[in-house]
């Protein structure tokens, strides 16, 4: 099986009035067909910009992707393509759904038409065929009475239904990759669980690879094959879901796991929740960007920039102390109880 998507040294910088924002600064990963990669981090860690860079949706006026960066889709460079080439992939081979389903659908067009739009564009379907296929897709994502609901406008849908419609829209052309940017964050907890189940189920049926972007590790616990943790535009931990959840290496990941609502009570006083704010991406702290918030920071962390280093087979971390066998945390299952 060949690699579906390779991201090589991705650097996406924004030139703003206040300075250069290094939103993504040297990210590498691979995505295999049918697999799920979770990209986890706080807001501003660069996870959404990573996704938008893959889609080539970075605003041209301010955003610059590094010349030594590359994104290969099925071996072909996405960054090297002309606009028409990129558009033929967008929504067709790589589709994306967004955080807020309330605002992501165009309020003045019927839901069915919005789903059919990419079918007309990429698959050359006639309007009528696209409408019919849109109904099937709505049915597939679990919208009852799909035939009638396709004729509704987005404001007639509930939040959960709109996100289902977004998923239907994204899957319309049977894409190889589905990028989901915080798809459940804006939804109620019960609806969140339903949407996640739907995505898992659809992935089994269609074999689509998923890049799941979230700030909440609990969301991806049940579906991710691999997990990439981002902080201040850089990868700080990368590994299989099992590695990252059960044998996390980076203190930041420990904090993320600890801040999850859990059914077992952790030993108090040993782990600290993440305190403070994410750093400014214009003036990134010296040394390890996490050091101002890291409870284990030593003097060396202020000066030396840790590189992402492979610690175990396929499990790497960007912490100066990750190689130290005593610097470890075992955690219990982070799987979230659905309330």
């Amino acid at each position, binding site marked *: 099986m060949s690699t579906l998507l390779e991201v090589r040294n991705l650097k996406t910088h924004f030139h*703003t009035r206040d300075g250069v924002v290094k939103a993504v600064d040297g990210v590498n990963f691979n995505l295999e067909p049918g697999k799920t990669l979770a990209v986890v981090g*706080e*807001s*501003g860690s660069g996870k959404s910009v990573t996704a938008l860079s893959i889609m080539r949706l970075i605003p041209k006026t301010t955003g610059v992707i590094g010349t030594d960066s590359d994104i290969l889709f099925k071996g072909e460079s996405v960054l090297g393509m002309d606009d028409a080439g990129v558009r033929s992939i967008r929504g067709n081979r790589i589709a994306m759904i967004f955080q807020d389903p309330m605002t992501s659908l165009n309020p003045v067009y019927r839901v069915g038409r919005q789903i059919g739009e990419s079918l007309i564009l990429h698959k050359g379907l006639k309007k009528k065929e696209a409408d019919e296929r849109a109904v099937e897709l709505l049915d597939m994502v679990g919208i009852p009475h799909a035939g009638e609901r396709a004729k509704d406008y987005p404001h007639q849908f509930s939040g959960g239904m709109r996100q289902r419609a977004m998923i239907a829209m994204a899957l319309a052309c049977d894409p190889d990759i589905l990028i989901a940017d915080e798809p459940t964050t804006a939804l109620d907890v019960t609806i969140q669980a339903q949407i996640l189940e739907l995505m898992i189920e659809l992935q089994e049926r269609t074999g689509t690879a998923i890049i799941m972007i979230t700030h909440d590790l609990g969301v991806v616990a049940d579906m991710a094959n691999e997990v990439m943790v981002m902080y201040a535009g850089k990868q700080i931990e990368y590994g299989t879901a099992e590695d990252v959840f059960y044998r996390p290496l980076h203190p930041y990941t420990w904090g993320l796991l600890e801040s999850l609502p859990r059914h077992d009570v952790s030993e108090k006083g040993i782990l600290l929740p993440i*305190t403070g704010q994410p750093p*400014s991406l214009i003036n990134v702290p010296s040394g390890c960007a996490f050091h101002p918030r890291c409870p284990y920071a030593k003097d060396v962390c202020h000066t030396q920039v840790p590189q992402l280093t492979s610690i175990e087979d396929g499990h790497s971390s960007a912490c100066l102390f990750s190689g130290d066998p005593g610097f470890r945390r075992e955690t219990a299952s982070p799987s979230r109880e659905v309330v």
Partner: protein
Amino acid sequence: MSDRDDLHHDAHNPHTHDESPVDHGELRDAAGHSIKDQSRSLPIPPTDDIITDGGRTLWGDAWYRLRKNKLAIAGLIWVIFVILVTLSADLWVKPYFGDPLAMDTTLGANLQPPSAEHIMGTDKLGRDVFARVVYGARISLTVGVIAVAISVAIGLIMGALSGYFGGFMDTLIMRGADVFLAFPYVLFAIALIAVLGPSYRNVFIAIGILGWPSIARVFRSSILSVKENEYIDAAKAMGAGHMRMIFRHIMPNAVAPIIVYGTMSIGGAIITEAALSFLGMGVQPPTPSWGLMLSDARPLMVRAPWLMLWPGFAILTTVLAFVLMGDGLRDALDVKMKD
């Protein structure tokens, strides 16, 4: 050790919850811009904005922004210039250029083209056009300021009654405002003046009465938004009376939008005065009013085209100055305009 303690205290900083659904649309930075908007278009954590804005007050901040708006400053300078010129006119215009009311019935003294003696020429009664344009500014500015003062006074009372007491009073006043707004502006002024009789005083009464609904609406919505704040309940609990509530707690918050509307309205009032005088429903001859001068110039367009040039130019620049100032104030004070 002390560093670590500081970090703990920050644990509840809102930005660590930036992506939770509850916070959407609620977070505003110090300047009032929605933080969500910023983070979407440019995924920078908004922390810098919050921290940089130290002790500057709303007004200091607004003045700083206004100063950077070159067009608004140009408008301000022009208005000050016009005021100074027209106020000092008795000292230098009358003695050196001529009395705006002094007719010259000598043969050939009227309808002179611009010359060294009469830099803007003379009108059909031999009066110096420059002197009339300069003195016309007094009429325009007086009407503008007094009319808007009347509008603001009525608007504040109506808005206060409506927003503060609500209920039937609110319905009655707001329906009344709808009635006034249903009238085309100039037409109502004409009807009112037809009844009152055309005169200088009746012009600013008519324009003043017409302007109240917009001010009342603005003030009312300020009151409604302030009323929802908790500190109002606190003040009420402490036994503050209605008047004290309105002046101490509500007025300061409503001042900014009223200043913006007021500034823009002065420009509108100046144009309306000119239009009414032009139609013969305003300032009566021989008072030098820009609108009246244009009305006199109209039948002489072929013989003395210069007559219509300067009064029109004076209206245009003065009104433009107020419009630019209003635009600048709106941006500087960050007032949202509804229409």
